[in-house]
């Protein structure tokens, strides 16, 4: 059963390898289609895995470990080349390959002009492969391998336009941040092995509840270390600064990172390790806290940015904050459900934004857009749908997933009024900033008379339509998703009904939209007073709370200073000098000895005699 599941991973890997080797030799179109076909094939196989899984009884859906062969066997340590097929991994397969496929197709249109088209597609395939490996892993080892590969893939893709300095710097930043997370993961894996004697999920999760009491030190340590990785990948405070910068990459990359792959890994990790996290309520509380803080923090930054992609990037951080809130308060399947709906509407928003950028020949500043609703009608409608979903407009998918989380944040065992309040305020902010972008971009007057916007080609439009459809209707899948994931999380999550709270949350979203309309659809002159009053706050937000500067001051500068000090004192005066001194001493000794090699026969003979006499002395007298 599921022996074909390996192919889900193999296809994108083959695509990556093939396009890397032969990409330059085949026509652009072919490499684009090949790149799409591999991911499409994986998607079909994922569907097959889904239907096979559904044909089983719910209680038998867990624990299908498909082993290729035993890779390492050393003492008590065993490591199989194995993947895990269960509802959670299949759920992620579907999102990664499904949304990934749509983004691949869109990329054919978006990257058409790029001379390094095949390189782009080989990286994209590598990204999909890495993410699938991360999701499919049946043990912490391959989880970390996939985890690190995803970081590498993001590095390659963010820095894809390598002639752009800012892109290269952003790629480096993302990589460094991710490696910080990887280190946490690796240490966590060692702690897990130390505690359980195994790193396979099955062994660890089966042993954990009997082995540890809740909030045991070891469990807290493991969960917190894993969290370092999760925070780094999912751009949660304080490891978030790479995500907005990652917008330097091509737009499909942003869509892929933000919607289907990388940033969701943190949420997936916590959901996957929920057995451990349930044993560590303190950590859960911490996750939920960081989640809401990130949500409102990122949301507030998104309100003032002028780069269309940056706003959406902050919104990703903010929505991931919601997901972390959900898993932090223990409603794992709601977190996963929001992950799914978010994948659709965030991919949609990014691709629509990409369509705008494409139509305006690379313009990303929303102040220079405006009035695009006539020239780009399809992009306009699809962006509006994405914005409505993100804002949680009633009956869109974002509404269902976000409402459920907001409800739970108050009513769930670990929820409280503060979480709920921040979540609601963030919902309002979210609606505000995304509609601010919408009004700026599509309504109003044309702000840049030189631009000649044009609608994108069909190959970009069709993915937008497909994503819009799913973004609108996937909310209806909420009960099905809960049901499907319930074997993994041990039961169906309780949906709380509370008309008052629900109304407040909905009105927060609508209020955000209305405020945006009031500010940006009316004459700007009336706002001068408010602008002046809020100027300091605005500066603070516009500069992203100066987090980059704080890091620069607290970490980069001291590290640089230590580096300079070490170079001067340690490198030059310590290591270099030690090496040089050793060399010169050896030189001196050899010079001293070389006097003996005089070539004078009688001197040699004297040495021999002296040596002989000395040895005789030893033999006779000792």
């Amino acid at each position: 059963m599921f022996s074909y599941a390996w192919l889900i991973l193999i296809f994108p890997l083959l695509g990556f390898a093939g396009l890397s080797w032969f990409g330059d030799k085949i026509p652009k179109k072919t490499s684009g289609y090949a790149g799409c076909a591999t991911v499409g094939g994986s998607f079909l196989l994922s569907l097959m895995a889904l239907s096979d899984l559904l044909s089983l009884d719910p209680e038998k859906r867990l624990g299908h470990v498909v082993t290729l062969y035993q890779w390492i066997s050393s003492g008590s340590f065993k490591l199989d080349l194995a993947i895990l097929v269960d509802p959670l991994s299949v759920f992620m397969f579907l999102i990664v390959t499904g949304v990934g496929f749509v983004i691949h197709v869109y990329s054919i249109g978006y990257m058409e002009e790029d001379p390094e088209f095949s390189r782009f597609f080989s990286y994209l395939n590598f990204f999909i492969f890495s993410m699938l490996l991360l999701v499919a892993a049946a043990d912490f080892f391959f989880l970390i391998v996939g985890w690190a590969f995803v970081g590498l893939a993001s590095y390659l893709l963010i820095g894809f336009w390598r002639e752009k300095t800012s892109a290269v710097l952003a790629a480096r930043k993302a990589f460094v941040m991710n490696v910080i997370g990887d280190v946490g993961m690796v240490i966590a894996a060692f702690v897990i092995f130390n505690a359980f004697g195994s790193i396979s999920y099955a062994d660890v999760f089966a042993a954990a509840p009997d082995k540890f009491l809740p909030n045991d030190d070891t469990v807290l340590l493991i969960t917190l270390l894993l969290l370092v990785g999760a925070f780094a990948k999912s751009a949660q405070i304080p490891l978030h600064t790479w995500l907005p910068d990652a917008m330097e990459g091509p737009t499909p990359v942003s869509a892929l990172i933000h919607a289907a792959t990388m940033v969701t890994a943190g949420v997936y990790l916590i959901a996957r390790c929920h057995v451990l996290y349930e044993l560590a309520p303190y950590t859960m509380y911490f996750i939920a806290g960081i989640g809401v803080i990130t949500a409102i923090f990122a949301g507030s930054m998104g309100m003032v940015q002028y780069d269309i992609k940056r706003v959406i990037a902050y919104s990703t951080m903010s929505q991931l904050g919601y997901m972390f809130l959900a898993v932090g308060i223990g409603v794992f399947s709601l977190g996963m459900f929001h992950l799914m709906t978010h994948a659709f509407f965030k991919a949609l928003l990014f691709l629509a934004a990409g369509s705008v950028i494409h139509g305006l020949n690379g313009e990303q500043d929303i102040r220079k857009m405006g009035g695009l609703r006539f020239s780009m009608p399809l992009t306009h409608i699809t962006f509006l749908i994405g914005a409505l979903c993100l804002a949680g407009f009633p009956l869109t998918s974002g509404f269902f997933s976000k409402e459920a989380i907001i409800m739970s944040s108050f009513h769930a065992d670990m929820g409280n009024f503060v979480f709920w309040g921040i979540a609601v305020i963030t919902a309002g902010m979210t609606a505000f900033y995304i509609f601010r972008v919408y009004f700026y971009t599509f309504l109003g007057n044309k702000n840049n008379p030189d631009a000649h916007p044009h609608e994108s080609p069909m190959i970009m439009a069709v993915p937008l339509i497909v994503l819009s459809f799913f973004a609108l209707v996937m909310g209806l899948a909420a009960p099905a998703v809960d049901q499907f994931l319930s074997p993994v999380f041990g039961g169906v999550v309780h949906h709380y009904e509370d008309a008052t709270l629900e109304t407040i949350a909905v009105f927060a979203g609508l209020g955000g939209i209305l405020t945006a309309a009031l500010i940006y659809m009316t004459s700007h002159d009336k706002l001068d007073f408010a602008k002046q009053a809020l100027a300091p706050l605005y500066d603070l937000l516009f500069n992203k709370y100066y987090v980059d500067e704080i890091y620069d001051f607290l970490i980069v500068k001291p590290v640089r200073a230590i580096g300079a000090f070490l170079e001067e004192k340690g490198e030059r005066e310590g290591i270099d000098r030690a090496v040089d001194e050793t060399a010169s001493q050896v030189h001196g000794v050899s010079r001293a000895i070389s006097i003996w090699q005089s070539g004078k026969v009688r001197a040699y003979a004297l040495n021999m005699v002296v040596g002989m006499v000395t040895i005789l002395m030893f033999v006779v007298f000792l």
Partner: protein
Amino acid sequence: MGNQFVLIISSAIFCIGAVGFLIRRNPLIMLMSVELMLNSVNFLLIAYSSFLQTLDGQIFALIIMTVAAAEVVVGLAIILTIFRTRHDLNVDHINVLKG
């Protein structure tokens, strides 16, 4: 003729040879000093051979003589060659084998 006498004579000859080798500058004399040292050993071997009533020592002595003769031939050939090229036989000036 006691063993002690043989030992004293032998070591005396050996020391004369060694000191001669060390202090003389003429390679021919040095070769002769080497012969002295070798012969002191031969003397010892033969004395012990007779004392122990075996032939081993005498055989060794014959071998040493043969080898010494061969060495001297080689040494003399080298010395002759050096003298022909340099017209000088002071060993302190001959340091071309310096490592």
